[in-house]
C-alpha cells in the first residue's frame, strides 16, 4: 500500500491543474494490482457485499434492467395507442387523470401514462447503454492506441483528449446534438457518447501505461508474445475493472444528459416510442396544469441515475487501492 501511495505522490504534485484527470488516472492505477483479475474482483465483491450504498444501487439497477427487459409484456396498454384520446380537451382536460385501467391516467395524446413509463425504461436503457458503449468503443480505440504505442502517438491523442476533457461535458453534448441536421435518437446517443470518449480514452491509456511496465506484461514480452496479443490478452482484460466502474457512472451521466438534451428540445423527435428524457421534455408544456406528467419521468430518471451512481461510486471505492485499509 505504501508503495502505491508513493507512486501516486509525484502525480499529485506536478499536475496540480488537473484534478479531473487525476481522478481518472487514480482509477486507472487501480488496475495494477499485485494479483490482477479474478481475485481483485473477488476482494472487491467481499467489501461490496456489506456496503449498503452499493446494495441499494444494485437493487435499483437490477430492478430497472429487469423492468426494461419485460416492459412490453407487462405494460397494460399499447404505448402508441391513444385509448384516452376522447377525453383529451386542450383546455378543460389536457391530460386525462387516473381512472380504472389507467393507473396514472394518460398523457396529452390520451396514451396510457403508466404503460409509457414502463416501456420508456427500455428506450432510456438503450440510450444509456449505447451512449456508454459508443463512448467506450471510441475511448477504447484511442486509449489502446495511445497506451499501447506510446511516444508521439500517445502525446497527440492525449492532447486531443485533454482539450475535449476541458470543455464542459453538457456544453459539448449540447453542441454536437444541435449540429445534427436531422435529430433522432441516434444523434442524441452519439452526442452523449462523444462526451464519454475522452474519459474512457484517458482511463484506458492510463491503465495501459501502468501495465506496460508491470511484471506480467514484461514476462509475456520476454516470452516473445506478439505485441497486439499482449495488448488484447494481457493488458486490456486487466484494465477492465476501472472501465466497468466508469461505465457504470457513465450510464447515470448518459441518462441525465439525455434528459437535459431532451429538455432543450434536442432529443428524439419521434415521440411514439416513449423515453423518459423526452417525456420530461414534452411535459414542460403542462407543467402548470399537470405537473405530474413531468414528475413521474423525472422521478424515474433520478432514481435510476442514482442507482447507477451509487453502484458506480461504491465500486470505485472498492477498487481504489487507497480506500482498502
Amino acid at each position, binding site marked *: 500500500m505504501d508503495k502505491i501511495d508513493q507512486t501516486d505522490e509525484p502525480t499529485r504534485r506536478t499536475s496540480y491543474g488537473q484534478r479531473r484527470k487525476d481522478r481518472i488516472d487514480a482509477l486507472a492505477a487501480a488496475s495494477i494490482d499485485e494479483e490482477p483479475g479474478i481475485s481483485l474482483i473477488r476482494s472487491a465483491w467481499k467489501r461490496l457485499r456489506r456496503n449498503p450504498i452499493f446494495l441499494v444501487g444494485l437493487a435499483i439497477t437490477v430492478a430497472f434492467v429487469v423492468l426494461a427487459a419485460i416492459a412490453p409484456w407487462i405494460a397494460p396498454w399499447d404505448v402508441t395507442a391513444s385509448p384516452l384520446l376522447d377525453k383529451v380537451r*386542450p383546455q378543460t382536460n389536457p391530460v386525462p387523470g387516473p381512472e380504472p385501467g389507467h393507473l396514472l391516467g394518460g398523457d396529452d395524446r390520451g396514451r396510457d401514462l403508466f404503460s409509457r413509463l414502463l416501456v420508456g425504461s427500455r428506450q432510456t436503457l438503450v440510450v444509456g447503454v449505447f451512449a456508454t458503449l459508443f463512448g467506450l468503443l471510441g475511448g477504447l480505440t484511442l486509449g489502446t492506441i495511445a497506451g499501447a504505442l506510446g511516444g508521439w502517438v500517445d502525446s497527440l491523442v492525449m492532447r486531443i483528449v485533454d482539450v475535449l476533457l476541458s470543455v464542459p461535458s453538457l456544453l459539448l453534448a449540447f453542441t454536437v446534438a444541435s449540429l445534427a441536421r*436531422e435529430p433522432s435518437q441516434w444523434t442524441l446517443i452519439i452526442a452523449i457518447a462523444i462526451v464519454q470518449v475522452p474519459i474512457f480514452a484517458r482511463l484506458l491509456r492510463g491503465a495501459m501505461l501502468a501495465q506496460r511496465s508491470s511484471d506480467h506484461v514484461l514476462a509475456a514480452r520476454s516470452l516473445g508474445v506478439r505485441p497486439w496479443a499482449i495488448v488484447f490478452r494481457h493488458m486490456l482484460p486487466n484494465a477492465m475493472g476501472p472501465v466497468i466502474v466508469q461505465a457504470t457512472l457513465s450510464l447515470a451521466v448518459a441518462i441525465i444528459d439525455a434528459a437535459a438534451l431532451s429538455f432543450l*428540445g434536442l432529443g428524439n*423527435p*419521434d*415521440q411514439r416510442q416513449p423515453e423518459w428524457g423526452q417525456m420530461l421534455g414534452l411535459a414542460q408544456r403542462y407543467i*402548470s*396544469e399537470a405537473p405530474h406528467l413531468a414528475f413521474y419521468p423525472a422521478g424515474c430518471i433520478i432514481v435510476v441515475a442514482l442507482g447507477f451512481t451509487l453502484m458506480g461510486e461504491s465500486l470505485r471505492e472498492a477498487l481504489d487501492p487507497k480506500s482498502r485499509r
Partner: protein
Amino acid sequence: MSLRRNPATLTAAVLAAATLASCADSQRDDGDGDGGGGSDDGTFIFGAAGAPEMFDPFYATDGETFRVTRQMFEGLVGIKPGTAEVVPELATEWTPNDDGTEWTFTLRDDVTFHDGEAFNAEAVCYNFDRMFDQNEAGQTAGEYWGYVMGAFSNDAENSLYQGCEAAGEFEAVISISGPTSGFPTMLSLESLSMQSPKALEEGDANGIAAEGEGFSFPAYADAPVGTGPFTFGEYDEANGTITLARNDDYWGDAAQTSELVFRVIPDESTRRQELEAGSINGYDLPNPVDWAGLESDGNSVEVRDPFNILYLGLNPEANPALKDLNVRKALYHALNRDQLVSTQLPEGAAVATQFMPDTVSGYNTTIEPYAYDPDEAKRLLAEAGAEDLELTFAYPTEVSRPYMPDPEKIYEALRTDLEAVGITVNVKTASWNGGYLDNVTAGKYDAYILGWTGDYDSPFNFIGTFFGNLKENDFGTEAYPWGKTLADDLRAADAVVDDAERGAAFETLNQQIMDEYLPGLPISHSPPALVVGPGVDGVVPSPLTAEEFDTVTVGGE
C-alpha cells in the same frame, strides 16, 4: 365593409370612415371614465416572450418589437380595435384618383410628435422618402417595405410606391404604380408608421450598416420618436425591462396608465407563474392548456378571432406521386380534422375549408370541408395506384406559432391519421431556425406543416403569398399543369380595383383551389389568446395580435 378603394363610392367611404372614427372615439370614451390627466394611474406590466430588436419599427421584423413600437407610433391608417378593419388614424380620410394610382390623404391637424415637432404633410412625405431611400443594408433590413412595395429608390420602376407630395399643410398625395388590394391597407403596417423627421434626421435614422452577420443600427433606433399615446422611456437591458411613459400631449384620449412596462420572460411557464405572483399584469399567447386554470385563478383570457391558417403543405417535386389530384384528395379525406381541432387545439379553433380565415375579404362561405372518410381515402389511393404511398412528412421543433401552439402534437395526430389509411410516414424534423424553413423552401420534404398569420386584411396576403409566385413557392406549383394559370389569376384578381369584383374573383379562386388544384391541405384556424391579471380592464384583443395598451386600466385591489 370593404368600401374605400372605389372612386365611385368615394363619398360613402369618407362618411363611413368618419363614422368608424367616431365609433373608435366613442369606444375610447367608454373606457375613459375615471382616467386621464398627468396623475399617476399605475403601471401596466406586460410579460414579453423576447426582447425587442430595437425601436425603429421600419427595420423591425418580429412581433415582440412591434408590440412595443405599436404603443408609441401610429400610421396614416389604423386598424379598428378588435377587428382587422382599416380605419382612419393620422389621416382622417383618403381618396384615390380614377385609376387608383394617386391617393390623397387628409391629415389630422392636431398632432405633434413626442419631441414637439408638428405632424404635417411634409413630415409624411419625409417619412415615405426616408423609407424609400435606403442603402443596401437598409433595403434588406426594411423587410416589410420590401415585402409590400417590392423595391426601393434604386429600383424605382419596380416599386409600388412612386412618390409623395405635400399638396397642402395637411394634405399628402402618394403615388403608386398600379392598383392593388393591399393599398392603402398596408399603411396600417407597424413598419410604415410615422416618425419625427427631426429625430430621424438627428439620429441618422437611415445610417444602418451590415456588419458581420448582423445590422448595426443608428442612434435613432434606441431613441424613437412617434405620435402615439406612449413615449419611449428607457430600455434596461440588464434587467430586461422596457419602460414607456404616458404621452400627456396625445391628440386623442390620453393613455389610462401612466407607465407601460414590458418585461422579457422567455419561458412560457415562468410568465404564467409571474402573472400569478402578481409581478406582471399580462402576457401574450398563454398555453391553451393553461387557459382554464388561468381563468379560474381570476385572470381573464382574451381570445382573439383567428386570423391565420395552418396547412399541410405538399410538394409534388419531392414526391411525384403527389402530382395526382386523387392522391392529394385521399390524403385530405384521411385526416380527422374535427378530432384534431377538438383534442389538440384551443377552444375557438375551427376546421379550415380554404387557405384563409373567414375574416378576410374574398373568403368563400360556400365551400364545404372535405369529410373525414378513411375508406374513401383508401379507395382514392387504390384508384391512383398509390396504395404503398410513402411520405416524408416533417414538422418543426423549438417553435410555437399562433396557428400551431404545439407542432409536435398536431403532427402526431396527422401522422396517425395518415398511417391509418396505409401510408408509410417517414418522420423528419428540424428546428424552426435550424433548417426547417430552409428544407421546406428547398423542397426537401414531401409533406410538412406550416402556416401563416395575416399581416392585414387582404386575400392576396394569404393565397397570393402561397401560390402567387410561380417560381418560388413552398407548394411546388410549377410542377402542376395549372400552376401558372393559378399564379396569373391571383395577380389579376389582386389588381381589380373594385372591391366587390375583387372579392368575387378571390372567392372563385378559393373554390378552384380547393376543388381542382388542392396544392396543399388547409387544416385549421387557431385563436391566439392574451391573458391579463385580475383588475386589468380595457384590453381589446385584436385578430392581428396588434393590441394597443392605451385603453388598459390596472385596477387596484
